[in-house]
C-alpha cells in the first residue's frame, strides 16, 4: 500500500510518511503498521532549532505486546524518527522534514503511543563544560564546536554549517604586532568573514543546546536588527544563519485573509507594555557613570533627563510644540551593560522607544485551509517556525507576523501558529559589543590614577612551555622536559603511561625524592640543596595569578603510583625549610590515648622534630576558638604559606577519597584539588615590579617553593605534580 491511499486527514495535495530507524538498524516505513495507518498526532517546530516535539500512536499494537521484539524491533528507546511529506503535485518528498528520536512510550487502550523530541535537542544530553580557552573564540565557532559530532559521541546530527547573508561585510581585522596573542581571536584569519563577537566561555555545566547555545544566540544581533538563529534542514543538518527583521512580506511570505473560512486569528496587544519615555543608567569603558542626573541651581531638587522620549509626551513644557497633553506617559529605566557610553545609550534608548511605543501583536493563527504563497494556495503543513505570514485586513490593515512556533495536528488537519508582529528582545550593536566584550582587553579610565592591568603577570608571564606550574621545576630537579617534551597531549593524571617509561630509577631529575622513612621526622621532608643550606623545592610560576587545579602523585622507583599519605605545602618564601615547619609538642607526643601520637612515638620521633601531622599543627586557632599562642604549632614568621594540604585530621594522598572516611590505610598516593587559590610573587626580593627586564634576569623571579613530607614508605618515594592556571596564560 502506498501513501496515496491515505485519507484526507493527511491534508490535500500530499501526505505524511513516517520512518523509524532503530539504533544501529535500518530505516523502516511505519506510515502503516500491520495494515493500520499510524496516527500522527502533532508535529511541532520552533525557531530556533526546528523540530521540537511529536506524538504518534500505533493503533494495531496491543497492551500485551512487548516493544523491541518481532515485527516491532524498531520500537526501542532513542530510535530515530523521520516524518516526510510526500507532495502529490510534484510526485516526490518535499524539502521538509520533522526529524527527532523517541523519548517515551505509553501503553494505552488506543494503541502504543510514542513521544519524540526534535533531533537537535539530543545536544541537551551533553553539558557545556568550562574549558578555560587561552584566546577569545568567535561565537560561531563556539556553536560549531557545540554541534560537532566528533566532540559529542553518539550525536546524530550533522556538523553545523554557517551561512553568512549576501553582502556580509564583517571580516576579521588585521591585528598589529603589538596586540597580545591572548587578545587575538582563535580559529579565524584576517580578512575572513565572521560575526565579530567572541567569548572565552565554553559553558558552565549547562545543557549544550537550550543552555549554552541558546545563551550565545540571545546576543547575536546584526546591525540591521537581524538575529542569528539555528535552522533545521532535512537530513539533521543544523545551519547557523541570520533571521532578518522583516517589515514587509517577501515572496516566501504566507498570506491569509482575516475572517476567511478556516482561518482563526487570535491576536492581542498589551498596552501596559508600551513605553514612551526611557531613562538609562550605565558605566562606560572609561569607568564614567551616567544616569542623566540634573540638579536645580540651588541644590533643592534632583531630576533626571530621559535618554529618549516620544516628543508627544516629553518634555511637558510650553516650548515643546509636539506635546499632546492628554497622551499618557509610560516610563521605563534601561540598565545598560557595562561598557556602553552615554552617546550609544541615547541610540539604544531611542531604539527601545521605537520598539515598545507600540506593543505589537502576539497571538496565534489556526489554519484549517491552505494559505496563499506566491499567488497560489500552498499547503499549510509545510509552514515552519521562522517563516512569515501576512494577515490581510487585521484591524483594517495588513499585519506581518513572524512564526515563532508551528504545530501541525495531522489528526484534524489543522496547523497552529504562534506569531509575533515584533522581533522581540533585539539588541543594538553597541549593546552586543558591550555584553560580549573580552574581559582581558585593557581599558583606560577617565578618572586619573585608576588604571590596572587585566592580565596579572605581564612583568613575569606564565608559560607552560617554560615549565610554569610543574612540580618540580626551576631547580636541580626539573620535570619540565617530561611534561613538555616527552608526554603527549593524551597524557592524563597521574601520567603513569609516561612515568613508567621515564621512571625515577632512570630519570631521578624529573622527581622530588623523599627518602625511605627515618626515625627522625626532620629527615622525612623533601628538600633541595643550595649553597647556603637545604630548602623547599622550587616551582616556576609567574608574577601572579590563580590556580584552578592542583595534581600531585607519589611514585615508586619504577614510576608506578605508590599508595602513601603525605603533606604538601606551597610557600612564597625562598628561605622555606624544615626549621620553618611546626614542631612536635611534648604534650601531644605524650598523649596516652591519641593513636597518632602513639604512632609517632613508635616511629621514634621526638618532641621538637618538624612534623605536619600532630594535632592542630599549622592551625592559628585552637578548638576553643582562641588564637594559638604556642609557636611550635605554627609556621615560622615569614614562611608566607600560600596553600597546604595534609594535617592531623585529613592527610593528603587519598584522592578521590578522604582519610577520615575511608580509613588511614586506604591511601592512593594522589592529591587532586580543584579549589582555586591565588598567589603573588611580586612581594619577594627576587622581583622588580619596576622593570620586566630586571625581573627576567633574576633567577628566582616568579618562583614558589614546595615542602613535601612523607613517612609511610620503607623505600624512597618520588613526587610529581602540576598546577593549572585559571586565567588565560602563555602556551
Amino acid at each position, binding site marked *: 500500500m502506498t501513501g496515496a491511499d491515505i485519507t484526507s486527514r493527511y491534508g490535500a495535495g500530499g501526505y505524511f510518511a513516517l520512518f523509524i530507524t532503530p539504533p544501529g538498524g535500518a530505516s523502516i516505513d511505519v506510515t502503516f503498521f500491520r495494515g493500520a495507518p499510524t496516527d500522527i498526532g502533532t508535529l511541532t517546530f520552533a525557531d530556533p532549532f526546528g523540530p521540537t516535539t511529536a506524538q504518534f500512536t500505533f493503533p494495531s499494537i496491543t497492551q500485551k505486546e512487548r516493544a523491541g521484539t518481532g515485527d516491532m524491533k524498531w520500537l526501542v528507546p532513542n530510535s530515530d524518527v523521520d516524518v516526510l511529506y510526500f507532495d502529490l503535485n510534484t510526485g516526490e518528498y518535499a524539502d521538509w522534514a520533522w526529524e527527532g528520536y523517541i523519548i517515551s512510550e505509553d501503553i494505552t487502550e488506543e494503541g502504543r503511543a510514542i513521544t519524540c523530541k526534535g533531533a537537535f535537542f539530543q545536544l541537551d544530553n551533553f553539558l557545556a563544560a568550562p574549558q578555560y580557552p587561552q584566546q577569545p573564540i568567535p561565537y560561531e565557532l563556539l556553536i560549531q564546536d557545540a554541534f560537532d559530532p566528533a566532540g559529542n559521541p553518539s550525536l546524530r546530527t550533522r556538523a553545523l554549517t554557517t551561512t553568512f547573508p549576501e553582502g556580509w561585510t564583517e571580516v576579521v581585522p588585521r591585528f598589529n604586532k603589538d596586540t597580545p596573542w591572548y587578545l587575538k581571536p582563535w580559529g579565524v584569519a584576517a580578512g575572513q568573514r565572521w560575526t565579530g563577537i567572541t567569548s572565552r566561555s565554553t559553558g558552565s555545566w549547562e545543557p549544550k543546546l537550550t543552555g549554552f547555545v541558546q545563551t550565545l544566540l540571545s546576543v547575536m544581533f546584526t546591525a540591521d536588527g537581524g538575529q542569528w538563529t539555528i535552522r533545521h534542514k532535512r537530513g539533521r543538518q543544523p545551519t547557523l544563519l541570520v533571521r532578518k527583521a522583516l517589515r*514587509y512580506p517577501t515572496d516566501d511570505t504566507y498570506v491569509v485573509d482575516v475572517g476567511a473560512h478556516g482561518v482563526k486569528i487570535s491576536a492581542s496587544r498589551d498596552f501596559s507594555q508600551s513605553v514612551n519615555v526611557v531613562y538609562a543608567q550605565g558605566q562606560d569603558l572609561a569607568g564614567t557613570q551616567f544616569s542623566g542626573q540634573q540638579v536645580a541651581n540651588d541644590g533643592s531638587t534632583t531630576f533626571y533627563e530621559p535618554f529618549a522620549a516620544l516628543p508627544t509626551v516629553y518634555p511637558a513644557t510650553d516650548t515643546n510644540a509636539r506635546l499632546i497633553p492628554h497622551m499618557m506617559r509610560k516610563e521605563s529605566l534601561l540598565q545598560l551593560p557595562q561598557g556602553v557610553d552615554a552617546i550609544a545609550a541615547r541610540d539604544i534608548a531611542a531604539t527601545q522607544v521605537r520598539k515598545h*511605543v507600540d506593543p505589537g501583536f502576539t497571538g496565534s493563527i489556526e489554519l484549517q485551509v491552505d494559505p496563499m504563497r506566491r499567488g497560489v494556495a500552498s499547503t499549510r503543513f509545510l509552514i515552519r517556525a521562522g517563516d512569515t505570514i501576512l494577515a490581510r485586513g487585521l484591524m483594517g490593515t495588513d499585519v506581518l507576523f513572524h512564526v515563532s512556533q508551528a504545530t501541525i495536528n495531522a489528526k484534524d488537519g489543522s496547523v497552529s501558529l504562534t506569531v509575533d508582529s515584533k522581533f522581540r528582545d533585539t539588541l543594538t550593536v553597541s549593546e552586543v559589543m558591550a555584553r560580549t566584550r573580552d574581559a582581558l582587553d585593557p581599558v583606560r579610565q577617565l578618572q586619573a590614577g585608576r588604571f590596572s592591568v587585566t592580565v596579572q603577570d605581564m612583568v613575569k608571564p606564565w608559560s607552560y612551555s617554560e615549565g610554569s606550574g610543574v612540580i618540580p621545576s626551576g631547580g636541580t630537579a626539573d620535570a619540565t622536559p617530561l611534561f613538555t617534551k616527552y608526554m603527549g597531549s593524551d597524557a592524563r593524571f597521574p601520567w603513569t603511561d609516561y612515568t613508567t617509561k621515564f621512571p625515577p630509577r632512570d630519570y631521578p631529575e624529573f622527581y622530588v625524592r623523599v627518602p625511605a622513612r627515618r626515625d627522625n621526622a626532620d629527615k622525612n621532608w623533601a628538600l633541595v640543596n643550595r649553597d647556603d643550606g637545604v630548602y623547599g623545592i622550587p616551582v616556576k610560576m609567574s608574577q601572579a595569578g590563580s590556580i584552578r587545579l592542583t595534581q600531585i602523585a607519589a611514585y615508586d622507583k619504577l614510576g608506578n603510583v605508590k599508595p602513601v599519605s603525605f603533606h604538601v605545602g606551597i610557600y612564597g618564601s625562598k628561605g622555606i625549610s624544615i626549621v620553618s615547619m611546626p614542631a612536635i609538642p611534648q604534650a601531644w607526643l605524650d598523649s596516652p590515648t591519641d593513636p597518632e601520637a602513639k604512632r609517632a612515638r613508635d616511629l621514634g620521633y621526638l618532641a621538637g622534630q618538624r612534623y605536619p601531622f600532630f594535632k592542630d599543627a599549622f592551625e592559628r586557632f585552637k578548638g576553643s576558638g582562641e588564637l594559638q599562642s604556642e609557636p611550635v604549632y605554627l609556621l615560622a614568621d615569614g614562611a608566607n604559606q600560600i596553600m597546604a594540604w595534609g594535617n592531623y585530621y585529613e592527610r593528603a594522598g587519598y584522592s578521590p577519597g578522604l582519610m577520615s572516611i575511608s580509613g588511614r590505610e586506604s591511601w592512593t598516593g594522589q592529591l587532586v584539588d580543584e579549589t582555586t587559590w591565588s598567589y603573588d610573587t611580586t612581594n619577594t626580593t627576587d622581583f622588580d615590579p619596576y622593570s620586566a627586564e630586571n625581573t627576567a634576569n633574576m633567577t628566582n623571579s616568579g618562583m614558589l617553593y614546595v615542602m613535601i613530607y612523607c613517612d609511610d614508605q620503607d623505600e624512597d618515594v618520588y613526587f610529581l605534580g602540576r598546577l593549572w592556571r585559571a586565567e588565560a596564560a602563555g602556551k
Partner: protein
Amino acid sequence: MAGRITSWQTEQWLTEFIEGTWMALHFDNPDIAGEYNSEIFGGGYHRVQAVMYQPNDRAVWNSAPVVFNGLPVVTITHVCGWTDQVNGNMRFSIALPSPVRAVAGSQYAFGAAVLAVSLD
C-alpha cells in the same frame, strides 16, 4: 446604482492638499502603531511642507523636492502627509517599497513630481 463625482468637485477637495500638506517620516505603520506614536523623533528631524501644483486631471503633484535633513539613526518605513507642521491630522500614509535605514545626520529626499495624490 453607481454615480460619479465631477472633476470640479474632486479638484475642490484636492485643493486642501495644496493649501497645507506637511510631509512626515515614520518608523512604523501608523495604522497599527498609531499616527503620533510612529513618527520619527530626535536628531534634526521635523516635518517638511510639500509644495503642490494646482489640481490637474483629478490629481495633485508635488512641484518641488521634499528634503528631510539631520535624521537620527532610524529605519523609515512610511512617508505620511499631515495637515500641520506639528501634530494635526494625518491626511494619508504611504508604505515604502522597502524600509530605508538612515544613519545619524543623514538626509532623506524625494524629487519633484514623485508624490501624487489622486481621487479616481
